[in-house]
C-alpha cells in the first residue's frame, strides 16, 4: 500500500478470498509464464515522501536558467509570452484536468464545447472554415498535413521552402520516408522563398507544397504568391503559421492556403522546455473528411437541447484502423483549452493590439541591434515578431554565453538551429509582449558589449593562431 493505493491487510484478505486465490503471487503465477516473471527488484531507488520528491524536483529546476531568471529573446518556434493566470486556474480544475477523451458526451459537454469553441477560434485566426480539435504540436502537424496530401492525391513529391522551421522539415522527412515520398527543398533568396525556384519545383507530381509564415528567419513571405504558384498543380498548399502574427498578417485562408498548421504554444501555453503544447490544423472545406484527429460538432439531445459530440469519427483509427486518415487518437485537449482561453482573454481588439505592439517593438529592436558594430541584418524583409541578424564574430555561441552571463539571452544560434553553414554568424531574436523597450535597450547594450569583446578575443585568437 502506498499513499495512492488503499488495500489494507483486511481488504486484501477479503479480496483474495472473493477471487478464490491464496495470494497475490498466485494471481500472477497462474497467468504469467515462469520464464518471464521478474524476481529481482527494479533498478529504481526507494520511494520518497512527498516533501522529498518536491525538494528533489525543485533542486533540478534550480539547475535550469528559465525565462524567470534571465531576459530572454529566444524564440525559434516557442515563445515566452505571458500566460495569464486565468489559464492556470482553468487548466488546473479537476474537471478539465482529469477526464479523458469525451467518449460519453452526456457527461463531457464541458470539454466538447471547449473543443467546439477552440475550433472556432482557429478557424477565425486562419480564415479557414475547418479546424480539428488540435494535434500534438507544430512540426508533427506539418507532417500530418503531408500525410493528408498523400492520402488525398497520392502524388510523389513534397516541395518545401527552406524557410520552414528545421524541426518541421526534419519531421516531415522522417514521416515521408515511411511512405516513400520525396522531399525537395527550395532555397531562400533575400531571406524569403526564392519565387522562381519555387515555381520551377512544382509540377504535376507535387503532392504538397510547404512554407512557413513568417519563415525561420523571421521574414514575412508573400503567402499569396507562393500559394498561387501551386494553383495549376495537384499540390495541397500547406502553410506553417505563427498564430500570434495573425493579428497583423493576412490569414492563410485569404492567401490561397489549403491547410494551415502550426505550433500553438504561443497561445497561452507554457514553454515547458518544449512541450506539451498543441498543434493546430485548419483546412478548406474540401479536406473536412480527411482531417486527422478529433473534431467536435454541434447537435441536439433527445429532449432537443443543444449539445456537442465528437463527430466524423469514421476518419479515425479506432474505427477505420489501417484505412484511417491518421493514427492520432487524442487531441491536446488541455493545451487547446489554454489556447482558446488565451484567445478569448486577448479578445478581438487585444489580439490585434498585441500584433501591432510586437510589430513595433520588433522593428525597434532590429534597427537598434543592426546599428551595433559587428552586427547587421541577415535580410531586409519585413518582420513581425522575430528577425535574424548576422554577427561578425568567430563564435555566436560564445557571444550568447557572454550575454547570458550578463543576464540576457540574446536569441537562438541560427547555424546550430538549422544546421546550415550558410547561417554561420546568424542570431535569431524573438520578441514577446514581455520584452519591453527597457529590455530591448538592455539587450542592445549587452549584445554590443559581447560582440565587441568576442571580436577582440577572436582577433587575439586569430593573431595567436
Amino acid at each position, binding site marked *: 500500500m502506498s499513499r495512492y*493505493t*488503499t*488495500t489494507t491487510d483486511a481488504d486484501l484478505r477479503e479480496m483474495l478470498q*472473493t*477471487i478464490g*486465490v491464496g495470494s497475490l503471487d498466485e494471481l500472477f503465477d497462474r497467468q*504469467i509464464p515462469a520464464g*518471464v516473471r521478474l524476481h529481482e527488484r527494479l533498478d529504481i*531507488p*526507494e*520511494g*520518497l515522501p512527498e516533501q522529498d520528491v518536491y525538494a528533489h*524536483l525543485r*533542486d*533540478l529546476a*534550480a539547475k535550469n*536558467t*528559465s525565462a524567470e531568471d534571465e531576459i530572454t529573446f529566444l524564440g525559434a*518556434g516557442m515563445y*515566452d509570452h505571458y500566460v*495569464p493566470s486565468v489559464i492556470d486556474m482553468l487548466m488546473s480544475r479537476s474537471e478539465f484536468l482529469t477526464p*479523458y*477523451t*469525451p467518449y*460519453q458526451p452526456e*457527461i463531457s459537454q464541458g470539454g466538447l464545447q471547449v473543443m*467546439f*469553441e477552440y475550433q472556432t477560434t482557429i478557424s477565425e485566426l486562419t480564415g479557414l472554415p475547418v479546424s480539428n*480539435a488540435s494535434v*500534438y504540436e507544430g*512540426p*508533427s502537424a506539418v507532417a500530418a498535413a503531408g500525410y493528408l496530401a498523400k492520402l488525398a492525391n497520392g502524388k510523389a513529391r513534397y516541395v518545401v521552402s527552406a524557410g520552414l522551421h528545421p524541426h518541421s522539415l*526534419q*519531421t516531415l*522527412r522522417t514521416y515521408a*520516408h*515511411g511512405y516513400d515520398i520525396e522531399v525537395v527543398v527550395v532555397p531562400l533568396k533575400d531571406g524569403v522563398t526564392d519565387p522562381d525556384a519555387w515555381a520551377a519545383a512544382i509540377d504535376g507530381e507535387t503532392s504538397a507544397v510547404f512554407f512557413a509564415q513568417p519563415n525561420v528567419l523571421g521574414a*514575412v513571405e508573400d*503567402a499569396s504568391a507562393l500559394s498561387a504558384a501551386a494553383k495549376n498543380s495537384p499540390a495541397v498548399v500547406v502553410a506553417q503559421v505563427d498564430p500570434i502574427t495573425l493579428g497583423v498578417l*493576412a490569414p492563410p485562408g485569404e492567401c490561397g492556403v489549403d491547410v494551415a498548421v502550426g505550433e500553438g504554444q504561443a497561445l497561452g501555453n*507554457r514553454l*515547458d*522546455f518544449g*512541450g506539451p*503544447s498543441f498543434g493546430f490544423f485548419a483546412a478548406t472545406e474540401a479536406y473536412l473528411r480527411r482531417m486527422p484527429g478529433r473534431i467536435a460538432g454541434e447537435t441536439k439531445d433527445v429532449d432537443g437541447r443543444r449539445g456537442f459530440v465528437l463527430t466524423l*469519427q469514421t476518419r479515425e483509427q479506432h474505427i477505420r484502423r*489501417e484505412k*484511417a486518415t491518421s*493514427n492520432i487518437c487524442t487531441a*491536446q485537449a*488541455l493545451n487547446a483549452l489554454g489556447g482558446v482561453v488565451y*484567445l*478569448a482573454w486577448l479578445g478581438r*481588439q487585444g*489580439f490585434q493590439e498585441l500584433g*501591432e505592439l510586437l510589430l513595433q*517593438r520588433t522593428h*525597434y529592436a532590429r534597427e537598434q541591434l543592426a546599428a551595433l558594430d559587428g552586427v547587421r541584418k541577415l535580410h531586409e524583409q519585413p518582420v513581425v515578431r522575430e528577425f535574424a541578424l548576422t554577427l561578425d564574430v568567430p563564435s555566436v555561441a560564445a557571444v550568447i554565453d557572454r550575454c*547570458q552571463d550578463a543576464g540576457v539571452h540574446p536569441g537562438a544560434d541560427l547555424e546550430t*538551429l538549422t544546421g546550415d553553414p550558410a547561417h554561420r554568424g546568424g542570431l535569431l531574436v524573438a520578441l514577446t509582449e514581455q520584452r519591453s523597450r527597457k529590455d530591448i535597450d538592455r539587450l542592445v547594450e549587452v549584445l554590443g558589449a559581447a560582440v565587441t569583446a568576442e571580436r577582440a578575443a577572436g582577433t587575439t585568437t586569430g593573431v595567436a593562431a
Partner: protein
Amino acid sequence: SEVKTIFEKGSPGRRAFSCPKVDVPMVEGLLPDAYRRTEPARLPEVSEPELVRHYVNLSKRNFDLDSGFYPLGSCTMKHNPRLHERVAGLPGHARLHPLQTPKRAQGALELMYNLERALGSVAGLPHVALQPSAGSHGELLGVLLTRAYHEDRGEHRRKVLTPDTAHGTNPATVTMAGYEVVKVGTNPDGGVDIEDLKAKATTDVACLMLTNPNTLGVFDPNIEEIAHIVHEVGATLYYDGANLNAVMGISRPGDMGFDIVHYNLHKSFTQPHGGGGPGSGPIAVSDRIAPYLTVPVIEKQDDGTFTLEHDPAEGRPGSKSIGRLRGFQGNYGCFVRSYAYICSLGAEGLKDASETAVLNANYLLAKLRALGVTEHLPLAFGELCMHEFVLSGAPMKKDLGIKTLDLAKRLLDHGFHPPTVYFPLLVDEAFLIEPTETETKETLDAFAEAIAAILTEAGEDPAIAQNAPYTTPVRRLDEAAAAKSPVIRQPL
C-alpha cells in the same frame, strides 16, 4: 436555458486583456498593405469575470476522475497526484525555453536522463527515447525504427503483423509507416493464434506488434514461443505499452523478447488525461535498434554533466538516427510528472501499483460473478485477468433487451463513468473494465452493485436503460445528425 458559447456572450468592446503600451517610437508602414490582415479575427469580447464564469461553468458539465470512478478500459485512469502539477509548474521547469543552452538546462537534462534509466528498468531494455508525443506517436517511431533497422541491413520487408485484438492505432500506424497490415487471429484462450502466426510469419514480415497483457486483459501464455517465431524470421517484436500498468516490476517486455516498447506516460505513469491530451509516448529499444533512435540524444559525460547530442558518435544510440518526429525534446512537462511519480513510488511502489491493479480487476470480476452479473455479461476469455477484463453483453442484449451501450448510459445516472464499450472489436457487445490500483474496495463494490441493480431493473423494464441517462447535463445526443451535416464551429 440553452448553453451559449463564449462567442455568444460578451459585448463589443469588452476585454480581459490590457495590452502593454507601445513604448517604442511608432513607425507606420512596417508591413506592405498586401500582407496585412484587413478584417480582425472575430474573437470573443468579454471581461475577465465573464471569461472565468463561462469556463468554470463549462467545467461543471464534465465528469472527472477527481469526482468519481472512471474504469475506462485500456486508458488506465489512475489517480493523478497534485504534487505533479506543483513540481511541473515550478518556473525552472515551466518557463524553461527548449533551446536554452544545455549548460544552463542541466536540471532538465538530468531529469530526462534519470527518467530514461527508470523507464528502461521497467521495460528491461537499455535505450530510451522520450521524444514521441503520445502512444500513437511512439508506435509510429517504433515501426519507423523497425524499417530503418531492416533497411540498414539491406532488407525491404513489406508487412507488419497485428493481432485482431490490437488497438486501432496499431494498424493505422503500420499504414503510415508504409507497411501492409496483416491480421493475426486470437485463440480460444484470448492469446495469439500460434498456428495463424506461424503461417503468416514470413521473411517478408518486418514486425509483430503486440500488447501484453492484451486488450482482453489476457497475458499471452505463449509469449516466449511467439518471440521465438518472430525472431526466427528476422522480424522485430514490438510491445504496445498501453497495458504496462499490469506488469511493472512483475514481468519485463525485454525479458519476454520484445525489441521495442512504447510507454504511455499518461497511463502507467499517471499524467492527467486533460480531456484527451496531452500524452507522452517514450520508447525503449534493444541494442540492435538503438542506432536508429531519434535525435537529439541525452548523453551523460564523464564530468557528470549532460549534453544533447544531435549527431551522436558512431556506435552510440542515434548514430544512424531516423531523424526527429516532432519539435524540440518531447513533452518535457509530462516527463516531470512521471519522474515525480517514479520518485514517489520507487521500485516497490511501482510493483505495488501493478499488483493492486491486477488485484482490483480480479476482485471486481469476482464480485460481479458473485452478484450474478456474469450470467448476463460473461467474461469473454479465461478465468482470471490481468489489470482489466472484457465482458460480453451479448447475452444481456438477448435476455434483457438492453445493449452494452444502454448499460453504459444507465451507469451515468449512478454517478459512474462507464467502462470502454464496443472494444475490443472481436468481442460481441464488449464491455472493457479497468478499475486501476487507486480505487478502493468500497468503490469496486458500489460499482458492481450498480451494475447488478441496472440488470435487475432491466429485467423489469428495459426501457429505463434504453432511454438513459436522465440526470446528466444533456441526454443522449444525435450523433448521426452531427456527422451528416457537420457544424464544427460557431457561426458568426
